[in-house]
């Protein structure tokens, strides 16, 4: 890993050499609206040669450019090493209190590969719970909860570093704002993650998403043309492969266009901690535990028992029947002709 002084030495390298050592360094110039320096010119000389009027127009100060460059190169290094070193073995949530001040008496430790369900009505404190995890609360939030990483209090600097973000959220009302094809979209994400072999990672994600989605799509499909289920599948595949966040929060996977069980298994296989806000019996029974939210606090933690799981076969059978009716409707059939209802 390059250390700070080496980042400063990068300033005096000719651009061709710089780009060979750090291919993403070119982004520094484009992100500030500057042109890429000529191959033989060093970054420091380039900064010195820039026209004062151009800098004024771009809202940049010459004396801060070297500092910005060094900070940018450090960011690149941190992102790369953050992805390599994001070893999270456990996250512990130490209970605080609910809105009335009643103590939550629990220490909840979750590990990669576990599925935790979140249940409770709107306004019962689910968002606050996630905010506590995201902020790595140290008794300094309204709930008084404390978050420990690998059993210890996290370094406060991690609170705001984008490479240490704890929670990736796959919310139900998410949209794609960008007008890109699936392939371009995933490539863009992979680039921001400094992935080495972008084409093969992109291809793997698209294949995985297609395995999860009911109806297939191609790398050339625009993301805005994807169905709800396909979008969900793509984001689950993308998050499982590209996100550095150890926790993935999903709010309710709708029962259409996506294999829900496989979707959850995909995240589990990639060693994510899956938090799932769901009242769907099949998904809820996939969870190892359920956190019950009430009045801003966690009022109970229910371990999924074997007798509860014994219902799973029955629920799946019911689900399959309903699914068949849905398909019949889609195919223009009459429901009464569906033999499964008999």
């Amino acid at each position, binding site marked *: 890993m390059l250390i700070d002084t080496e980042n400063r030495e990068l300033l005096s390298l000719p651009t061709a050499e710089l780009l060979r050592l750090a291919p993403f360094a070119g982004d520094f110039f484009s992100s500030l609206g500057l042109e890429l320096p000529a191959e033989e010119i060093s970054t420091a000389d380039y900064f010195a040669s820039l026209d004062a009027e151009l800098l004024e127009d771009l809202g940049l100060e010459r004396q801060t450019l070297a500092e*910005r460059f060094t900070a940018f190169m*450090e960011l690149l290094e941190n992102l790369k090493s953050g992805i390599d070193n994001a070893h999270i073995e456990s996250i512990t949530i130490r209970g605080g209190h609910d809105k009335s001040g009643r103590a939550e008496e629990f220490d909840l430790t979750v590990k990669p590969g576990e599925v935790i369900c979140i249940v409770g009505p709107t306004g019962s404190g689910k*968002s606050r719970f996630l905010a506590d995890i*995201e902020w790595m609360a140290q008794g300094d*939030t309204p709930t008084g909860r404390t978050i420990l990483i690998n059993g210890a209090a996290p370094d406060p600097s991690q609170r705001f570093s984008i490479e240490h973000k704890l929670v990736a959220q796959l919310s139900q009302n998410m949209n*794609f704002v*960008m007008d890109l094809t699936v392939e371009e979209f995933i490539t863009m994400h992979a680039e921001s993650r400094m992935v080495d072999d972008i084409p093969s990672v992109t291809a793997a994600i698209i294949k995985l998403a297609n395995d999860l989605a009911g109806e297939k799509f191609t790398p050339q499909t625009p993301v805005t043309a994807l169905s709800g289920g396909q979008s969900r599948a793509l*984001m689950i595949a993308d998050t499982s492969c590209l996100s550095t966040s150890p926790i993935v929060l999903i709010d309710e996977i709708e029962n259409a266009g996506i294999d829900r069980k496989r979707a959850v298994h995909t995240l589990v296989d990639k060693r994510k901690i899956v938090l799932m806000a769901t009242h769907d019996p099949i998904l809820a029974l996939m969870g190892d535990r359920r956190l019950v939210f009430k009045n801003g606090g966690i009022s109970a933690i229910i371990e999924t028992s074997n007798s509860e799981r014994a219902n799973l076969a029955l629920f799946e059978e019911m689900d399959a029947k309903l699914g068949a009716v849905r398909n019949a409707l889609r195919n223009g059939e009459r429901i009464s002709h569906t033999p499964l209802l008999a």
Partner: protein
Amino acid sequence: MKLITIAGPPSSGKTAVTIKAIAALQREGVHVGVVKFDSLSTQDQSVYEKQGVAVMSGLSGNLCPDHFFVSNVSDCLSWGAEKGFDLLVIESAGLCNRCAPHIQGVLAVCVIDNLSGVDTPKKIGPMLKMSDVVVITKGDIVSQAEREVFSYRVRQVNANGTIINVNGLTGQGGHELGKLLLNAPETPDLDGRLLRFSMPAALCSYCLGQRKIGSDFQMGNVKKMDFK
């Protein structure tokens, strides 16, 4: 008294996140006041009043709102001191991406939203690049991938600032933003302080009310596009 400047493009959620942060601070007994700058009209005054926040509005009318801001900022500070606030928030109109009403030694916050697209961080000047805290809003309605790319692109242009995601509707992150605002240094007075960056020059015939188009009517600080 602590002073904070909040800037950001129109409709990025400046008022919404400010209100959520203030609500959290009020619960902890912090006395907060707001000055809202706008150009033509502002509904935000009543939004703040509803929250029980003392607020003063400044309408710049036909003047550049950011220049208007600088001319009035010392008086804003005096008003806040007179009212006995612990913390005064000055919210800018957010009209021009080049401008930055940020002051050296005063906590500078920039609010931008995920919906504006991943190329936006590049397009915003000192307002974003020189801010201490970047608040990213509307994260709940875009995909996780876009959220991650967006914060990465913000990081690219502002490597040292603190990035925080706040949901202006649910308030998720508002409490945490409040904590960051409390870190602002005390600002006893502003006379002689420097803006973090010069405001765009504007002194041509059109600044003075000219309406006719054509080179005969262009005078002063005029810049031409290069079509070659």
